[in-house]
C-alpha cells in the first residue's frame, strides 16, 4: 500500500531515461495544491498584495523554483479548469455538470503506467462539483484517484444530529452561491473513508467543529491521508477564496490569507512525515486568476468572466528535491504543462496531454 521503495542506485549510475522511468519514480512523491479558486496578482504578489501571502513569500518561495507567467487559455470555471490541469488538455464540458473529464487524468496515467494501487493517489476537493475529477471515461484508462469531498462527508456525519444548516454547508459553488449540484459518481463515502483513515466519525466531526472553513477541513483530511496511506500522488484543491463571487473584498482577502497559511501547513506536514520528507515535490498554483479592475466587462476581483490577461495569467511554485531553490523562471509557460511535468517526474507517459514538461523541474 505504501510506497517504500528507495531511490535505486541505478539512477545515479545510468541516469538515462529508461531506467529513470523505472527506478526513480517509486520513491518520489508529489503533492499538487491548487491555490483556488482564483486569486489575482494584485492581492498576492504585487506590492500591496504581499501582506496577504507572508508564508509563500518568506517560507516557500525562497526554497522554490517559481514560475512567474503561467497562462490558462481554457474555460475559466473552477471544475473544468481544475480538470484541465489534471488532464493536461483544455477540457470543454459544462463547468456545472457532474461529468468526468473527456481525457485521461494524471491519476489514470500514474496508476496505469506505474501499476499503482487505488490507495496510492487521492484527490481532496471542497465542492460536490469536483466529484468526477478522479478519472475519465476513456476506455483504455478509467482507473484513477479516489475523490474525497470533506464537506459532503461532514454533512453526512452530522445528519443524524440534525444540528447543521445543510444549505450553508453545501453551498460550495461560489459561482452560483445558492445552487448546490446533486452529487453523483464515485466520491468516497464516510464509512469507507473512516475505515481507510482509521478515524471514527465522532473524531472527524469533533475536528470539524474546531475548523473555520472548508479548506481547513480539506487540509485536515489530506494530512490524515498522508499519515495513514501515504499516497505518492496527492491533489488538494483549495477553494475558500472563491467566496469573492459574493462581492465582499474582505472575505476574499481572508480566503487568500487562509490559503497562504494552509499551503505552509501542508509543506510542514510533508517535512515532518518520514514517508514524505526529502522525497516530495510540491506544486502550488492557482487554477486561474480573476478579472482586472480595469476591464469594463467585469467587476474586478468578484468574478472571472472576461477572459482578460489578468484572469488567465498566474504563477506556479515548485518546491522539493525536484526543484532548485530560489530560482525565478520568467519565461511564459502554460498550466497544461503541469501533467507532462508530473509524468516526467514520476515516470509515466501523459500521452494525450498537450503541454510540455518543464525543464526546470527534474
Amino acid at each position, binding site marked *: 500500500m505504501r510506497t517504500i521503495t528507495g531511490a535505486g542506485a541505478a539512477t545515479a549510475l545510468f541516469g538515462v531515461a529508461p531506467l529513470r522511468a523505472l527506478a526513480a519514480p517509486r520513491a518520489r512523491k508529489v503533492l499538487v495544491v491548487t491555490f483556488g479558486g482564483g486569486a489575482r496578482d494584485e492581492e498576492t504578489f504585487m506590492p*500591496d498584495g504581499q501582506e496577504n501571502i507572508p508564508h509563500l513569500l518568506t517560507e516557500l518561495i525562497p526554497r522554490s523554483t517559481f514560475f512567474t507567467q503561467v497562462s490558462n*487559455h*481554457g*474555460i*475559466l*470555471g473552477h471544475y473544468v479548469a481544475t480538470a484541465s490541469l489534471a488532464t493536461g488538455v*483544455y477540457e*470543454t*464540458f*459544462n463547468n*456545472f*455538470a457532474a461529468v468526468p473529464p473527456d481525457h485521461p487524468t494524471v491519476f489514470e496515467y500514474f496508476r496505469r503506467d506505474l501499476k499503482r494501487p487505488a490507495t496510492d493517489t487521492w484527490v481532496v476537493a471542497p465542492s460536490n462539483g469536483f466529484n468526477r475529477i478522479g478519472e475519465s471515461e476513456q476506455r483504455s484508462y478509467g482507473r484513477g484517484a479516489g475523490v474525497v469531498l470533506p464537506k459532503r462527508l*461532514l454533512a453526512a456525519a*452530522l445528519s443524524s444530529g440534525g*444540528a*447543521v*444548516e445543510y*444549505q*450553508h*454547508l453545501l453551498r460550495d*459553488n461560489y*459561482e*452560483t*452561491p*445558492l*445552487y*448546490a*449540484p*446533486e452529487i453523483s459518481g464515485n466520491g468516497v463515502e464516510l464509512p469507507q473513508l473512516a475505515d481507510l483513515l482509521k478515524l471514527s466519525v465522532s473524531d472527524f*466531526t469533533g475536528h*470539524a*467543529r*474546531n*475548523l*473555520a*472553513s*472548508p479548506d*481547513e*477541513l480539506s487540509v485536515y483530511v489530506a494530512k490524515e491521508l498522508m499519515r495513514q496511506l501515504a499516497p505518492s500522488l496527492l491533489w488538494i484543491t483549495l477553494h475558500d477564496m472563491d*467566496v469573492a*463571487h*459574493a*462581492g*465582499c*473584498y*474582505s*472575505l476574499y*482577502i481572508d480566503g487568500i490569507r487562509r490559503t497562504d497559511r494552509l499551503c505552509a501547513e501542508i509543506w510542514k506536514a510533508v517535512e515532518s512525515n518520514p514517508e514524505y520528507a526529502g522525497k516530495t515535490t510540491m506544486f502550488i498554483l492557482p487554477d486561474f486568476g480573476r478579472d482586472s*479592475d*480595469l476591464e*469594463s*466587462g467585469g*467587476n*474586478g*476581483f*468578484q*468574478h472571472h468572466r*472576461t*477572459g*482578460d490577461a489578468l484572469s488567465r495569467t498566474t504563477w506556479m511554485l515548485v518546491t522539493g528535491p525536484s526543484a532548485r531553490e530560489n530560482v525565478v523562471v520568467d519565461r511564459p509557460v502554460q498550466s497544461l504543462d503541469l501533467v507532462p511535468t508530473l509524468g516526467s517526474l514520476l515516470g509515466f507517459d501523459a500521452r494525450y496531454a498537450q503541454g510540455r514538461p518543464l525543464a526546470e523541474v527534474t
Partner: protein
Amino acid sequence: MLPSELQPGQFQSYPPEGRKLAARNVALLQQLPPVFLPLLLKEIIVYDWRFPAEREELDRQLSYLDALPPGDRQRLLAGFAGLRISPELQSHDWVNQPARFEEDLAAYLWATHQIDAFRAASMEYLRKIDAARPREALAARRLGIVVVGQGVTETRYPLFRKMRKEGTYFTNVQRDQGVRSLLDVVAARARAHPISYAHWYIDGGAAETGGEGITAVSYGALAPVRAVLLDKMQRAIQSGIGGPEALRTMLAELRPEDLGMSGAPSNAVLNRFQISVLTEGSGTQIFSTTFVQWAAREAWRRAQPLTLLARYAPRQRQRPMNELIADHGDDRQLPDPEGSLVDADMGAYYTWLNQQRLPDAEQSSFLVWFEGHAEALAISPALPRGTESASVIDLKALLEQIA
C-alpha cells in the same frame, strides 16, 4: 433562422416601445451578423424599461449603424461575423429569447476557444461607437460621493490606498451634519438640474430622506423583496430546476409584481432596475456592501447620472464553518463593521472607476468619506493629485471646492 429572414411581425412579444423600435429598424437588423443581432435584440426587448440615457445610447447606436455604408458596417462587425456558431444556436429562438441565446452563446464561445476573439470584437466595436459619439456638454460636471465605514470607531486599515495617487487625501475633515450635509448637496443639484434619473442616492441600510428629484434605492427598503426572491430561488433549486443556467433564466424573467413590487408603468423603470440589481448581481441579495457596490456600478453604467451618493452600511457577518455546525442560530444577522469597511473601501474605488468610464470623466469629481471620522479623499480637476492635506475643512466646503 438567419437575420435576413427577420420580419417586422416577429416582434409581437416585445413591449410596445421596443416593438416599434425593432420594426422601424428591421431593414438594418436583417443585415447584421448572426452572433451580433441577438445581442442587440436583447437591448431592444427591454427598451421600455430602460433609463433615458440607455434609450438615447441605443437609438444613437442604431442610427450610426444604419448610416454606415454597407462596406464600412461589414468592416466594423467583421469580428463578430467571423465567429462560428453551432446549428443549435442558429436554430435558437433568438428573436423572442435573446437573453437565453446570449447565455448559450457565451458557453459555446468558451468551449470553442472563441471567447478571446469575441472579446476583441466587442472592444473594437465599443471603441468605434464611442469615438462616433457626439460630444455634448453635460448639464453639470458629474459628482460621485461614497460614504464608508458606518459603525466603525477605529481602524488600522489603510483607507483609500488605491485612489490616493489620483487625488488629495484630507485628514482633518469636520463632520458638521455628516451624511445630511452630503444629501443636501445632492438635493441642491437635483433642484438645479431637474433631469429624470440624474441624481441618485443608494444606501446599504435604511435610507435617509432624500428629497425631490433624487432617485433613492436602499437595501433596507428592499428587505421584503429580497425575502421573496430568496424564497423563490430556494424553491426553484429544491424543485430541481436543472442547474445554474436555468436558475439564472428564471431570475431574468421575474417581473416586479412577482416579487411584491408595484407593476405600475410609472414605477416600471426603477423597479426593473432594482430587480436587476438583485437578480443579476451575485451576492447582492445577501450582503449589503455588495448591493451598494453593484447598484452604484449599474446606476453609473445605465442611467449615467450627474450625481451619485452611495453610502455603505455594515453587512451581516459571514459565519465560519464551526459556527454553522454549532448552529446557535441567534447571531447569524450580527453585523461585521470592520469587514464592511474593507468591502466599502474597495467598492469606493470601483465606484470611481465606473464613473471614469462615462463621458466627460476628466471633468468629473469624486469624494469618499470615512463616516464619522476626519478622513476623506477627493479627486477633482480642481485638486492636486497624490497629495495630503491636514487643513481643517468641513464636508460642505470640500464639496463646494470640487463640484
